[in-house]
């Protein structure tokens, strides 16, 4: 059972790695978007496993993007190094913020994160000498000179970082800590769990992933701007994907990102501008009829069928 599962993952991984051999540029570009959103959806879900909802994803995504672009442009760092530093910057920032605001829980924490995203945008817009102000900053060229195969490998790596982190968390004591904190903080504390430390830790790690993703995104498209890099899309779409696919798991957000990513790409071609409406409807229907998400609902039915 275990061996066949490992084999399955290996086959999927090799297929994804060699995807540029069988497909064209267009599909690779679609994959880039799906993988970027996948990393974000999964990072959001990882924090959700502790019971905390963040609406600040776009903020940390933008911070990672700006850090990566500015370090590359002003300090002449290698793009890949600058992307990694973008992730670290977002992580350190989240640590500082987390220590200050993670006394708050639930809706109060969510509102603070929502405000944070806005604050970063305002700061960036008002530092024209450093950030280019409202116009943003354009790179002389996109990463890998726009080579779609290498770009795809970059987004694949970012998504893999997110998937592997999520799986590590699911298989270690972190899973037990987060599940306990989500269900009952008093029980968690009484079992010896340092609730505050774990919340700061998970907020920091998920924010670092969001910063890393933002850095990759900024280098792929070759520019950062207050409206583009801090767009609310980078908060709302990943949340929708995680909810559609199924919360509190690795494969839920992954499946959600693939499905919604493809659907939105298809709809964009069929009904320009109308696609967001259909997109919204899909989310409403999914949440009404599969509150566990696709993976959660399927998993339950499979378990039932297997047990009967």
């Amino acid at each position, binding site marked *: 059972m275990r061996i066949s599962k490992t084999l399955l993952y290996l086959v999927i991984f090799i297929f994804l790695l060699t995807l540029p051999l069988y497909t064209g540029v267009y599909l690779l570009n679609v994959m880039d978007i799906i993988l970027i959103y996948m990393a974000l959806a999964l990072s959001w879900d990882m924090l959700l496993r502790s019971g905390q909802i963040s609406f600040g994803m776009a903020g940390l995504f933008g911070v990672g993007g700006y850090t990566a672009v500015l370090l590359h442009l002003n300090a002449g760092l290698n793009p890949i190094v600058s992307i990694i530093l973008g992730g670290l910057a977002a992580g350190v920032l989240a640590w500082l913020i987390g220590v200050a605001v993670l006394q708050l829980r639930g809706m109060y924490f969510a509102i603070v994160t929502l405000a944070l995203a806005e604050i970063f945008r305002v700061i960036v817009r008002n530092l024209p000498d450093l950030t280019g102000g409202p116009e943003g900053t354009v790179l002389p060229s996109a990463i890998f000179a726009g080579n779609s195969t290498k770009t795809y490998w970059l987004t694949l790596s970012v998504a893999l970082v997110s998937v592997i982190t999520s799986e590590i968390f699911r298989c*270690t004591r972190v899973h*037990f*800590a987060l*599940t306990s904190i989500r269900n009952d903080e008093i029980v968690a504390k009484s079992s010896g769990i340092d609730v505050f430390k774990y919340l700061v830790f998970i907020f920091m790690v998920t924010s670092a992933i969001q910063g890393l993703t933002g850095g990759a995104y900024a280098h792929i498209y070759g520019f950062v701007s207050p409206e583009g890099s801090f767009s609310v899309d980078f908060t709302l779409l990943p949340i929708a994907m995680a909810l559609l696919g199924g919360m509190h798991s690795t494969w839920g957000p992954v499946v959600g990102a693939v499905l919604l990513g493809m659907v939105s790409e298809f709809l964009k071609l069929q009904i320009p501008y109308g696609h967001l409406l259909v997109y919204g409807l899909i989310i409403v229907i999914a949440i009404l009829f599969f509150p566990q998400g696709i993976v959660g609902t399927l998993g339950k039915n499979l378990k039932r069928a297997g047990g009967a």
Partner: protein
Amino acid sequence: MAVLKTENLTRHFGGLVALNGVNIEFREDEILGIIGPNGAGKTTFINVIAGIYLPTRGKIFFNGEDVSDQPAHKRCRLGIGRTFQLVRPLPGLSLLENIMVGALFGKGLGKEEARKKAEELCEFLGLSDFTRDVTRMTALEIKKMEIAHALATQPKLLFLDEVMAGLNGDETMEMIDLVKKIHSRGIAIGIVEHVMRVIRELTHRVVVLEWGELIAEGPYEEVSNDPRVITAYLGEEA
């Protein structure tokens, strides 16, 4: 020797005095009963000792160390374990995993050791079918799981908050035997209970709380004949 000692322990909630100047000593080899009418402050007492609330005034000494300002997770790691009056299983984790949480964090064991510890405790308490979902368990099983969860942190002092509530006669007998077995492992026990038969059967000493104050202390036979205790439970004669 006293495993736990409180000095002038006081806790206010706004204008309400839930505990007022309570001095209690738990000896390391005893089962101490904590009784009193509803609202006397029994559960608040456990919560203050476990660190869920900090005391407004007064001190708590555990094994001679002042733990009054320590947060709950540190007190758990020092060896103060507790169950909850209203059972609080963690859904999303199986029966065995619920118990493992205690061993992983209270005792700092690795995952495999924690699993072994949890399995051993299940056997000790007579729990089977480890991978079960916690939403499909009987009252007795959930109570046992909570005890196992607390035991997995390897407490030196264990508080049982109304573990007999909701159990039928046979189950109560089984639970009484279990408490004795736990005590024979060298764990001091503080037990809050309304069923006096259980208190008589199990405890070496009893403390009585009323309106947050300690009104009597001593062996059950003595305390149960104390006129102040009888008044507290039955009220003044008209």
